[in-house]
């Protein structure tokens, strides 16, 4: 069997969170109660324990720049611990390769908050027997089901039959172990050369004896196993090391009744959760799960939002090049599922305010630009997309015309039309950004 595994997303509690917030707003009138959560919850954080031998090995590998062709890049170079394990640079993508001159294909995602990430699947919930359904079968089932509109507080997210889970912007790796090998070998990133070269470096690494101790001498003669164990060690480091999932944002403490949100932050939270306004929580889940786990600010599903093309990417100089996410080109197993072309993973918004590259192609550099995109994409597309030579607005210019129907035009605020009133005012956007800044880890609770 393979039991029904519920990766509960806590959608059911969103209503509760809304209620919590409503009470909080009323509390604003009372100076003493200002900004506190009137219904504090207890959050279940991952247990903290000394790193295991496996995780310590993983840490060494995570910081080992000798595994790259340049000798200058380690995992930590692009997944910087000082930047929430995201990119430390100002550009849309990071540079790699032997001379650190090649652009990575996509904006570097943060490595934080991935330990609870579900495997890639295409709904519905697979059921509890051992019959393995392949992705094509899942997609076929998915095609028969109508898509539900996702609203904050609604149940659409769990009912939807769309791709969900998986790591990278396109979900092509299920486990952190599988994920770790891609950048190591990608010629645009660490450019490790080949499995042979990587295995050879691991055998001669200062930490090589740890492999023998953990897996026996045979592991050194088995290249595939050696690499698998090394990448698992990296994954285990991410699972055990608390800084990959600290849950120490101001919002976490607010949920627990230990911090106060400012008036602007509270307004931002309300707008974030309001289905008629920003509706962010429709996908970026903001309520704790039923098990008391802190919210991850993603429902782990995929969306085609039609973000503008980023002219700063070298790949995009080729007008026929399109990054289509789930259906390719980096993911190669389900190109025939064209209904998913243009879909990318909904990322966590934790620590998003520390980033300077947003969306898969890094086209936005600030949260203001991101909020403008959500706000004006449909009411005032000229504010978001470039104009062609004939001055026509090139909506969804980073997607081939035939895939434009894949773009989400139902979930608020994307259900609006040219001339409609935008969902948010300038002040609304500012307040939401103020709230997003409360999702940055490292908040110090006042006594």
């Amino acid at each position: 069997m393979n039991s029904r595994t519920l990766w509960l997303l806590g959608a059911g509690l969103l209503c509760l969170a809304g209620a919590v917030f409503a009470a909080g707003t009323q509390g604003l009138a009372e100076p003493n109660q200002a900004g506190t959560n009137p219904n504090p919850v207890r959050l279940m954080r991952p247990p903290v324990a000394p790193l295991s031998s496996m995780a310590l090995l993983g840490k060494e590998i995570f910081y080992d720049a000798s595994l790259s062709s340049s000798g200058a890049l380690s995992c930590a170079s692009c997944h910087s611990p000082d930047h929430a394990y995201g990119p430390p640079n100002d550009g849309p993508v990071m540079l790699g390769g032997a001379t650190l001159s090649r652009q990575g294909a996509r904006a570097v995602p943060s490595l934080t908050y991935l330990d609870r990430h579900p495997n890639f699947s295409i709904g519905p919930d697979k059921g509890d027997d051992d019959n393995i359904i392949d992705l094509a079968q899942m997609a076929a089932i998915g095609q028969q089901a109508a898509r539900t509109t996702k609203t904050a507080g609604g149940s659409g997210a769990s009912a939807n039959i769309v791709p969900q889970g998986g790591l990278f912007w396109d979900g092509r790796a299920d486990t952190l172990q599988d994920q770790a090998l891609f950048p190591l070998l990608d010629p645009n990133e660490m450019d490790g050369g080949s499995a042979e070269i990587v295995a050879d470096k691991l055998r001669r690494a200062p930490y090589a004896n740890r492999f023998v101790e953990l897996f026996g001498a045979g592991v050194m003669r088995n290249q595939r196993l050696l690499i698998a164990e090394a990448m698992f060690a990296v994954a285990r480091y991410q699972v055990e090391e608390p800084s990959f999932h600290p849950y120490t944002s101001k919002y976490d403490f607010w949920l627990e009744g230990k911090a106060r949100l400012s008036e602007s932050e509270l307004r931002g939270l309300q707008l974030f959760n309001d289905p008629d306004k920003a509706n962010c929580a429709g996908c970026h889940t903001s309520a704790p799960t039923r098990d008391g786990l802190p919210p991850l600010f993603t429902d782990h599903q995929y969306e085609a939002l039609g973000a503008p093309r980023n002219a700063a990417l070298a790949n995009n100089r080729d007008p026929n090049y399109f990054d289509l996410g789930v259906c390719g080109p980096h993911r190669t197993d389900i190109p025939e599922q064209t209904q998913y072309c243009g879909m990318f993973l909904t990322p966590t918004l934790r620590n998003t305010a520390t980033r300077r590259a947003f969306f898969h192609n890094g086209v936005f550099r600030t949260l203001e630009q991101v909020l403008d995109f959500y706000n004006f994409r449909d009411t005032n597309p000229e504010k978001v997309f470039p104009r062609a030579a004939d001055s026509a607005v090139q909506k969804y210019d980073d997607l081939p015309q035939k895939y434009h129907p894949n773009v989400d035009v139902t979930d608020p605020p994307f259900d609006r039309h040219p001339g409609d009133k935008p969902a948010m005012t300038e002040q609304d956007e500012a307040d939401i950004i103020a709230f997003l800044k409360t999702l940055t880890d490292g908040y110090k609770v006042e006594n």
Partner: protein
Amino acid sequence: MKSKLLTTAAIVAAASALACTLPVLADDFGRDRDHGHDHDHDDHHRHPHDIHTETPIKHLVIIFNENRSFDHYFATYPNAANPSGSIPFVPKQHTPKVNNLANANLLVNNPNTNPANGTGATNPFRLDRTQANTRSQNHSYTPEQQAVDNGKEDLFPKFTGRGTAGGAGAFGTNGQVMGYFDGNTVTALWNYAQHFSMSDNNWTDTFGPSTPGMLEVVAGQTNGVQPVIGTTSSIADGQGGLTLTGDTDPGNDVCSSTTSTMLMGGKNIGDLLTAEHISWGSFMGGFDLTLKNANGTTGCGRSTFSGNVNGTIVDYIPHHAFFQYHASTANPTHARPSSVHAIGHTHDLNGKVDPANHNYDLEDLYAAIKAGNFPAVSYVKMPAYQDGHAGNSDPLDEQAGNVELINFLQKQPEWRETAVIITYDDSDGWYDHQYVAPKNASYDATADQVNGPGLCGLGPNKQPAPKGLGGKPVNGRCGPGTRVPFIVISPFAKQNFVSHERITQASVVRFIEDNWLHGERLGGGSFDATAGSIMDLFDFDHCDEANKLFLDPTAGTVVVSVPEGHYHY
């Protein structure tokens, strides 16, 4: 006063030393038995202590876990790698040799380096405690037979080496099916084996996944599928009927699939026990639909979060419900027992048929025992996150659930006449090196592959398939299937002993029949008639009640004081 205390202490000491051999009064168990009916004259509610048994065992608890092969858990027993920072395992001196990878010299130069396994070709390798959360392997009826490769046991990576990914933090690799844990991870099971007895020659009766295993351990037989909804995971038996070879939910169970369910013909051990008014029950995590879990889930959807697999897992899995497949022993609505005193019994104390019909929640086992109503025979299925099945569970959660129950049982006065069996429904497809030629032949042209296409056995003329429910040879029962762990924990278990007598899941059925039912058999093609005896694991002339082993549920290590704190809803 001082001398009086000493005298009392001496008597207590003497009594406990001899407790296993002395006749034990039923009143010894008389906690909370003030509900006012006469035990001695109520044939329907005899205390198990008062029921005649062939051995001193009056209570049997079968903890039926999921999906681990013998070599997968005991490949290097009793020697663990003990890397720095691990929970070290130090074997007892004079630990008997077991038939495992280390002793068979198969840790290197293993036949599964066969190039036919492609990128999965590998020698066996150690899985660390940090890798407890793994992918599940392929454990279907036919691929498991193909991995055997006519006794060469060399195609596991090719045929059973794939499965679900198991969450972002899971370990997975090509050839992972060759991985094994040691005492640094399955610490509790290794400790139990050191203090009690274990078989290294225990098999599933047939190849294939969970539901066939559930049926073998209660009925010894998988022929006679009666589809209720849709199609079932079965094959034609060659006599116009169906034999179950895969997982299918039980018919009419309110938690079952809405597209595929079935019932079984024939009888199971529960029918025989019921007829003799011997108390018995199925105790499954998640079965009580009236409870609300800590996370607010209810009904069939009750679930528990596991930090080890980093997921929230539904507790009750219908296709593991041993007794829900035979209408005579089923409780399809999950009706609750009329009282804690009715648990295990067919009738309540007023003589009315009890609605639960012997099917309860695991919580009910704890409650019944606390109330002095420990059934004679208890089949236990842990909530799914603790059942041991890779993907939804793992060795560490499995260990916690098993240790908690066994710690609890060892604290009861009934422990002196109790035996616990820990064994498994199937191997999950994990590598095990031992081959045994089919004893139960089967010749389905596509499904059977052990000895060649369409062959499980020497051929229909030389070795006919075993008789099924209707008394004619039927296909789909190819076995023995895979070798899985089998541990007996009891004051009467031999100590640090390994039995090499071949037994199977149906040997559990046979033991119940031999112990309580004067050797009555189920008939209808059940393997109880031919299964080996587990008596070799016991020594009924020597009872060491002091040989209790309390373990830490998380670490699996020996503890002096007994941790309290079973989680009750």
